[in-house]
């Protein structure tokens, strides 16, 4: 009982500190801690009790310390290993995705930035820890079907030709097919598949409308568009984040989910968003970017004056 109270108070205070410190949601932090280390905390309380039992009524004396501590050491070892492996896993995932991005120098770091922004948006929308994790994986891997394809690499036209347009339309499904074997990604696959759907139902691949689109996909769509605007391309400079936000806001309700766009505005008030550095030599990079909001309009068959990514 005492150990239960102790854990709850402990988690609550840590979550408060983090809330004040970095502005993450109190509730999601508290739940995350309860589900990850709550069980462990309770266990330690019981272990103290066992120690006493063994020492006195079972008459084992000091040797009980050895017997009790052995399993604890092993548990600690496993937790440490787990944490290390998890970090290594995330590094590996990021490095391999980044490797796929190197062919388009302007795209380097795109997946990771989208993942970072998506997580912030997800927290702003009050997603739980499990949903946030699935969102993060979906966001970092959202373009994997695009990175694997290589046909676009040599493209030097102002806009993609017909076969490239088909490739663009297909890349979410290609990514899902590639990742479908990975057990831990099962909750992320749908969000990857629909990350180019549009709020007005004119996106691809399935022309889903509004809230029929998975929430994570709507989040990734906003982060994706925003990142496309804040990085440059050959012949176009990156927009500063306030200008990019204006463009994104102008698309709320047509291209993008208005709720998520509103959260983006709030997130940008709290976090500064650095504009992506242009690559030292951008030779050979395609002149277009499939994530550019203009491209979304073009594929949806909408002709509107170029408000977004054309010039600055």
């Amino acid at each position, binding site marked *: 009982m005492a150990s239960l109270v102790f854990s709850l108070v402990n988690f609550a205070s840590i979550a408060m500190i983090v809330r004040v410190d970095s502005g993450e949601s109190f509730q999601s932090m508290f739940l995350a801690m309860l589900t990850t280390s709550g*069980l*462990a905390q309770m*266990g330690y309380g*019981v*272990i103290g*009790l*066992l120690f006493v*039992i*063994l020492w006195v*009524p*079972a*008459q*084992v*004396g*000091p*040797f*009980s310390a050895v*017997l*009790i501590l*052995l*399993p*604890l*050491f*092993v*548990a600690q*070892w*496993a*937790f440490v*290993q*787990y944490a290390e*492996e*998890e*970090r*290594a*896993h995330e*590094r*590996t*995932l990021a*490095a*391999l*995705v*980044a*490797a*796929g991005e*190197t*062919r388009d120098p302007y795209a380097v770091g795109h997946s990771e930035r989208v993942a970072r922004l998506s997580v912030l948006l997800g927290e702003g929308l009050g997603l739980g820890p499990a949903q946030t994790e699935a969102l993060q994986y979906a966001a970092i891997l959202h373009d*994997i079907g695009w*990175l*694997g*394809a*290589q046909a676009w*690499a*040599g493209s030097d036209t102002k806009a993609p030709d017909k076969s490239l347009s088909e490739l663009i339309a297909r890349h979410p499904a*290609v990514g899902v097919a*590639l*990742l479908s*074997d*990975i057990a*831990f990604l099962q909750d992320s696959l749908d969000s990857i598949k629909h990350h180019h759907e549009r709020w007005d139902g004119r996106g691809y691949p399935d022309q889903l409308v509004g809230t029929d689109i998975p929430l994570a996909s709507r989040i990734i769509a906003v982060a994706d568009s925003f990142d496309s605007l804040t990085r440059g391309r050959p012949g176009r400079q990156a927009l500063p984040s306030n200008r990019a936000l204006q463009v994104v806001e102008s698309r709320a309700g047509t291209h993008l989910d208005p709720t998520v766009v509103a959260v983006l505005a709030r997130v940008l008030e709290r976090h500064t968003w650095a504009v992506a550095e242009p690559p030292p030599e951008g030779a*050979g990079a395609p002149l277009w970017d499939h994530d550019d909001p203009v491209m979304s309009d073009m594929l949806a068959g909408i002709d509107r004056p170029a408000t977004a990514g054309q010039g600055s």
Partner: protein
Amino acid sequence: MNAPDIALGVVRGPAHGVRRRLTARWVVHVAVAVAVIGTINTIRNPGPFLSAWLVVSSFAVLIGVGEYFRFPVEDGRQLAPMTLATGLAFALTSVSWQVDLTHLAPGPIVMVSAIAMLCGALPHAARGRSLRVEEMAARFLAIFVAALLFRWAPLWSGRTLLEVDATWVGSRWPVAVLLAVIAAIGLFTFLGLSALVMASRSAGSLRQAFLDEVRSGAGLGLALSATGALIALAERPLGVLALPLFLVPLVLTQFALRQYAAIRATYAQTVRVLSRLTEMGGFTRAGHPDRVAELCVAVGRDLGLSGRDIRNLENAALLHDIGQVALRAPIPAGATLMAAPADQRRIASDSADIVRKTGLPPEVAIAVEHQATPYRVVREQRQQVPMLSRIVKVANAYDDLVGGSIALRRREAAVERIHLGLGYEYDPRVVDSLVRVLARRHTKGP
């Protein structure tokens, strides 16, 4: 430092000659025999078996629960730490509160454990998963060995250790040490039997399997034996309450290990899938990284590499061509063998650069880096080429030459061409191993 033997790196001694005829099935046969004999003994002489039904059934329930909550680890095995700890405690308990178990023979313990384990495993079988009898048999025999040593063998001047425990006066710490030692012996039995099962499953060497088993299992094993001894000791003052209470630390351990095993599995999946980035872009033939990895692992096992080396080898093989994702134009059919040596080296170094940025151990990047280095530099310039690289080089060449075909002629032609580069391009020992692996594969399968 530059003696050729050292340059040869990790390979120790000649490839093990004696193939183990003792297969995993033997372990199961022995376990079944023990269970049957135990049951017969129980029927003929039940002892306090029935009067102590509460204690016995509480052990049985937790053994079964442990079996039900077994979890997979990355080498394809399943662990059930709770079953082992509870079973060992069962074998080592002399008095539980006011219930005297000193006349409980090994027979009933063996019988109850067997039934409980089967009950715990049946739901898995009902869901169409494998029952995994070999691994269950290893656990079961560990419990049996502990029960035999403690309750039956007259090890203490003609008396069993159980009798010594029951009549011990004064501080009980020597008893605690004794119980911990017996539990540890039981666990070593388990590790040994597991090594036997693993070695016969993967056609690797028994010695290496045992070393891997001890290296990866010793920590958990110690925790398990300690828990087994703890429960047995605490049964005296606490009765059956000792079981749930003292399993708490173990539940904690199990929880941590499960998470660890899960992230390891996830990690492996991620690397495997992302290695396919190259084939998606048409840089390598479909399935090339997977096939090279599989072949490398088989050759690595045949050469007696450690579990850690095998894991690094597998990842190096999966990612050996990953540098190609940065290329703007694919090389013909993605076969690095056909590329000019300079291009081969560039791809190797690009791949190594990428691997270095991942969270994989540095050995993987080093192995990838040297995959194109010909074997002759080992002799001529006394350079060190890691064993893992030499294996990747041979497996990659074989797969490039065979091209995923299963035709006998293609396979023979490939091996022949590799033989032409023997000693110059390829390490003869690796090539010999490849030939052995291929021979085994094609006599076994269709």
